[in-house]
């Protein structure tokens, strides 16, 4: 079945989004569109170096992309990169429903 869900692919995404600040940054970018590091720093309520570090992790997981314009770096979300996580929810959802079906038929057979 599906339990593996290509951990190698899903893992950077899960790890990147395991941190609440990174989730907040990612969702802010998804909601507001492209943002500068400055704007994200104001939103996130942590220091700019901390935000930059979070953005690097998100970038490595391909959850965000950036472009430079003058002195500012602009980031935008790449929600397609969530696909492994959506797959995971779909696959495990199907897995457990299938097991519940089997459990039900086992219960019928038990004394």
């Amino acid at each position, binding site marked *: 079945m599906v339990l593996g869900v290509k951990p190698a692919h899903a893992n950077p995404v899960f790890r990147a989004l395991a941190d*609440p600040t990174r989730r907040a940054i990612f969702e802010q970018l998804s909601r507001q569109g492209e943002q500068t590091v400055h704007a994200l720093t104001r939103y996130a309520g942590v220091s700019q170096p901390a935000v930059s570090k979070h953005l690097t992790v998100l970038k490595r997981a391909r959850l965000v992309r950036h472009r430079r314009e003058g002195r500012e770096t602009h980031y935008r979300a790449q929600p397609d990169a969530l696909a492994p996580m959506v797959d995971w*929810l779909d696959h495990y959802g199907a897995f457990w429903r299938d097991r*519940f079906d*089997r459990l039900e038929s*086992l219960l019928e057979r038990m004394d």
Partner: protein
Amino acid sequence: MSNPAEGTRTLVIERQFSHPPEKLWRALTESTLLAQWMMKNDFEPMAGRKFQFRAEPMPNWNGVVDCEVLSVDPIQCLTYNWGVGGGDSGLQWVVAWTLTPAEGGTHVRMEQSGFGPDQQAAYQGANYGWQKFIGNLERVIGEVD
């Protein structure tokens, strides 16, 4: 002790069965019964017990789920770690089973949550909940298309 019920929920499956909780508990905790609906296993209902579920290997997965029993609360609640892929590169979850007596049977809730010990700390202190994120995920994806 982590509490998977608080703020870290990722996947919940619930169903009502027309069988008593005692019978559900046996199906969840007797190895030979468990094997008939989950997978082959060496489970024992003891906190701290390390065990494995084993299925046929397949591409991207060796068929093994590494588990450790976290808590056993007879006929009510059972939790274990659920690890796929092994070691640091693997993925870790907590699977929690909760049985609640219901009219004419039992309400069963399965909750799969968490992302491994190194990330538990982040979850415990999370004021920006994972649950909320998952809830918003569909919307985020929807806006892309």
